[in-house]
């Protein structure tokens, strides 16, 4: 796979340099430069919202630092959680004295590192809480929903956390509402072709010509099952059937939908998928609010897509519509 990079070992740091060079509202900070934070700094009295995760998923994670979204984000190596020090640095960067919500995907390394960071920060009197992104329905049965890993749907949790924090809610409320948002997001992905980690000798997985894999993770972790390539409408139906079979207890009649490219899949194809998603949701009597179609959560040049449904309630819908602004996503009232 051809890549426009310099030395593989410089991949993350040089990309971060370019990111902040292009977007002056963001800065690189932290002991090892592995934190992206808002240039204007933490707002005094506002609850901070922090995320973190591996690299190679841009715009996720650190691209969503901005007004009404994240305050800071720690950055690991490619597909590998951020280290403890970066998590400490990110939490500090987001701290405005009112506590910090840590909101990141449910992966072992990320969890341990954020946990260790919090233990150390307890001494410094920074109060933190945790909400884990657990939207991937392919990664555990509904009975074990808390074991699910986080994929594209974490975006909705970012939006809600950012909005309620911006409104001035206290840490406990920010945490509670964000946890509810996360519990109402469902995602399923399909992979068509792999990506390759810079410096690796081969792609992260292989898929025979004409085969696709449903439920694959954003690092190439195996999915639920392989199947023959099928028309987009049929695939959308297949994915929606699974999403709709797994509704949160009190799902209402409104959803937001994220049709996301894993990287190489062009937005033309996302719109073809969305066309069918919209048709199906119409049939189900579900009303779509603020749909998002694009490359929001990627795995470098992996080909494939994911569909997320965010089951709204009144408060969540209102928060979703609150203004937000970062280089990759902006919402205006």
């Amino acid at each position, binding site marked *: 796979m051809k890549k426009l990079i310099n030395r593989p070992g410089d991949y993350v740091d040089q990309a971060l340099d370019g990111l902040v060079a292009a977007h002056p509202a963001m800065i690189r900070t932290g002991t090892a430069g592995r934190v992206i934070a808002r240039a204007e700094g933490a707002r005094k009295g506002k609850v901070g919202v922090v995320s973190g995760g591996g690299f190679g998923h841009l715009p996720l994670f650190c691209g969503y630092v901005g007004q009404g979204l994240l305050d800071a984000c720690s950055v690991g190596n490619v597909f590998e959680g951020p280290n403890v020090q970066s998590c400490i640095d990110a939490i500090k960067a987001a701290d405005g004295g009112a506590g910090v919500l840590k909101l990141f995907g449910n992966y*072992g390394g990320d969890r341990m590192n954020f946990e260790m960071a919090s233990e150390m920060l307890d001494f410094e009197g920074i109060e933190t809480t945790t909400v884990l992104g657990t939207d991937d329905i392919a*990664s555990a049965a509904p009975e074990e929903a808390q074991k699910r890993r986080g994929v594209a749907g974490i975006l909705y949790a970012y939006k809600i956390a950012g909005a309620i924090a911006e409104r001035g809610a206290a840490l406990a409320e920010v945490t509670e509402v964000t946890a509810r948002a996360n519990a109402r997001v469902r995602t399923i992905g399909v992979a068509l072709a792999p990506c390759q980690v810079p410096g690796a000798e081969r792609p992260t997985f292989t898929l025979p010509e004409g085969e696709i894999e449903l439920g694959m993770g954003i690092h190439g972790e195996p999915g639920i099952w392989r199947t023959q390539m099928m028309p987009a409408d049929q695939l959308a139906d297949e994915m929606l059937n699974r999403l709709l079979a797994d509704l949160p207890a009190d799902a209402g009649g409104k959803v937001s939908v994220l049709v996301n490219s894993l990287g190489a899949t062009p937005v033309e194809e996302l719109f073809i998928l969305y066309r069918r998603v919209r048709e199906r949701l119409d049939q189900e009597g579900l009303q779509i609010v603020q749909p998002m179609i694009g490359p929001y959560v990627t795995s470098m040049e992996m080909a494939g897509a994911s569909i997320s449904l965010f089951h709204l309630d009144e408060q969540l819908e209102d928060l979703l519509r609150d203004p937000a602004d970062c280089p990759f996503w902006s919402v205006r009232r």
Partner: protein
Amino acid sequence: MITPQTLQDATARAHDAMAVLEQELNQADAVLGDGDTGGMLARVIGGMAALDLSQEDDLGAAFAALARAALANTGSSLGTLMATALTSMAKATKGTPSAEWSDLSPMLADARDAMLKRGGASLGDKTVLDGLDAVATALNGVETPAAAGAQARAAADQALATFRDLPCKVGRARMFADKSIGIDDPGMLAFAKLVAALAA
């Protein structure tokens, strides 16, 4: 006696071993995980091997330096658990210039418990911890480096064999518990391979 120099030699050996192991461990992880165990370990052990511990006379400080090197170089599950283990051993040896080989067994048992706590897994889940547990037990009462090497190697291999046909219960492989039967856990495999390299 285990001194900072023992650690220096061990990281050098492990570093050499990784040249061959890196891709093998990546592939083992790719089967059910995200295929990065080898690359991550190569980076972490590279960071450790780059340290100069020769002037260090506090064994605890040497362990702590290794733990910091691990933490600085990764955020992965296994890497962070390794750092947890090294921190536990740093605490046990803090302020002493050396440890006896017979101390190794209880030190590893403490490390194991710290890792269990940090990672939330249980013994029997088919992780690196089952390998470590087997080695900690096997080293009980062992007093020479030669014996320690032989016993550790045998125990780590035995654990690998015992668990091969059991399902994985944590980490990424958990979702494919059935698929994982018959397949080595990459963390446990890495542990056995590195123990073999150190014992050789």
